[in-house]
């Protein structure tokens, strides 16, 4: 794989910050975008700027064609054969809220349980808490081990006749843990329980095959996979989506409206009220096309190598402790450093040109479980290099010097 060529596809990487070469290691927050994504979005705004689904004119036809083509691209990328199983959303948070409001309100009943894990992002906790309070449901949390892995035995015991839904993260944003998704689904299927995956960090880092895994819902965010913000999707099995009432009401999701009664379109249109983020979805499609144009398996193998190298280097640096040491890791390495708070690490590294994330990573219960108030997290994309990890490690030595 030609790494220099790949890096040249991403204009955002090539800049100085505070007089130092940018080392962008905050990919789990959002990724840099390849030129192809920016070009596709500009093309829409410049040449095809029209609303979708309703114009009889050429611009609207072209916009609609580009926009609708993205469903098929997403479906193919995640192993679904049916483009109509893809519902466009703002991102993963929006997709989880959609399932909570629509599937949850319709199909979950008082006394039932929703199983999540101890390593969820707040976006896969709070929507279920709101639903649980409204419907009289109980939230059950699968514990996390000291290594930052799911306690599968505890999960197996937790699941049973009262379980109404399992919703879990595929890859932890805070620790990088890759969960055993096939086992999670198989255990749920034994009890006929539907399973949803928060795929925010899985989409960019691991191959996804929703049909082989056998889950019912999968949520992805474009901007965490080299696309723009505000554009993501919910994939759902056709029979599940068909069983669900609308999430939001408005234009584009109806068959007919009178003041007495409105009727709704079939999925996915039923769940897409209002003018969508057309440019964003087209950009997301371009990101998937871009990943299809490179040797993605080789690029991901390279990314895994850099991620592993980072974990090794940090674990060998005096004073640094990794938070989470999962056997299956993707995309992120979380760590703490002696008594130096992650915020101070982040500020000092920033002045060295190194962008990382510090804080609780929207996973406060997980931080509590790992006995840390916050961590510093380096997270990777296909364009990062071992040399960049070396700059990070060098920067951490400067943190130590400065903070004494």
């Amino acid at each position, binding site marked *: 794989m030609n790494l220099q060529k790949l890096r040249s596809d991403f204009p955002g990487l090539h800049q100085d910050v*505070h007089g130092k070469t940018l080392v962008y290691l905050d990919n789990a927050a959002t990724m840099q975008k390849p030129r192809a994504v920016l070009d596709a979005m500009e093309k829409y705004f410049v040449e095809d700027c029209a609303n979708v689904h309703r114009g009889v004119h050429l611009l609207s036809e072209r916009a609609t064609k580009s926009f609708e083509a993205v469903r098929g691209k997403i479906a193919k990328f995640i192993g679904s054969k049916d483009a109509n199983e893809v519902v466009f959303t703002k991102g993963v948070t929006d997709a989880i809220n959609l399932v909570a409001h629509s599937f949850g309100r319709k199909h979950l009943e008082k006394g039932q349980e929703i199983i999540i894990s101890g390593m969820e992002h707040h976006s896969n906790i709070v929507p279920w808490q709101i639903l649980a309070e409204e419907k009289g449901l109980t939230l059950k949390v699968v514990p996390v081990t000291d290594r930052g892995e799911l306690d599968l035995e505890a999960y197996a015991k937790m699941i049973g006749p009262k379980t109404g839904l399992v919703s879990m993260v595929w890859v932890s944003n805070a620790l990088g843990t890759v969960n055993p998704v096939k086992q999670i689904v198989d255990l749920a299927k034994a009890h006929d329980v539907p399973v949803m995956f928060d795929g925010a960090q899985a989409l960019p880092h691991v191959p996804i095959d929703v049909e082989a895994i056998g889950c019912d819902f999968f949520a992805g965010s474009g901007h965490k996979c080299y696309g723009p913000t505000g554009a993501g999707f919910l994939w759902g099995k056709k029979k599940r989506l068909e069983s669900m009432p609308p999430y939001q009401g408005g234009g584009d999701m109806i068959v007919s409206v009178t003041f007495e009664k409105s009727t709704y379109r079939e999925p996915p249109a039923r769940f897409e009220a209002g003018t969508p983020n057309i440019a964003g979805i087209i950009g997301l499609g371009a990101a998937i096309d871009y990943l299809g144009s490179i040797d993605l398996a080789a690029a991901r193998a390279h990314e895994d190598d850099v991620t592993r190298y980072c974990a090794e280097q940090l674990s060998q640096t005096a004073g640094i402790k990794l938070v989470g040491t999962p056997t299956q890791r993707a995309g992120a390495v979380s760590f703490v450093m002696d008594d*130096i708070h992650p*915020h101070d690490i982040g*500020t000092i590294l920033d002045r060295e040109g190194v962008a990382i994330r510090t804080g609780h990573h929207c996973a406060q219960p997980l931080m509590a479980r790992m006995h840390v108030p916050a961590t510093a997290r380096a997270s990777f994309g296909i364009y990062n290099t071992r040399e960049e990890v070396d700059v990070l490690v060098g920067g951490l030595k400067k943190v130590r010097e*400065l903070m004494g």
Partner: protein
Amino acid sequence: MSSDLRDLYQELILDHQKRPRNYRKLEAPNRVMRGVNPLCGDSLELQLNVEDGVVKDIGFEGSGCAISKSSASMMTERIKGKPVAEALEIFGRFHHMLTEGAPSEADEEALGKLAVFAGVREYPARVKCATLAWQTLKAALESDAPLPDVGNVSTE
């Protein structure tokens, strides 16, 4: 090491981070307030004894970065024994220094050692670290909730 980082992490700040003053619980506080920054998870609990309009004693505990911890430590030193009205006035000057611009001569005089935090203004992401303890103090001084109610204040 770049000199501008030294403007932020001055020796005085690092000293208070390593040896925070008044880092303790009071025996019988009559004001207790918890402050959190939900964006980063920093939190502290402030305990005060306010009698006859004077901050007789003050202590804090919590977790946070060097900026938030040293700011809390230096704040307790600065306002211990001071009238409530003066503490609130210092709050105003401190807040102004971090959010509006360089302190005037009068501000500098009133702030004393606290002017060491002027460098934080150049780091917008860190301003709330420095002001968390002060926002908590303001809420505690303005609160009339009787104990054992513990108040909560948030930077957001």
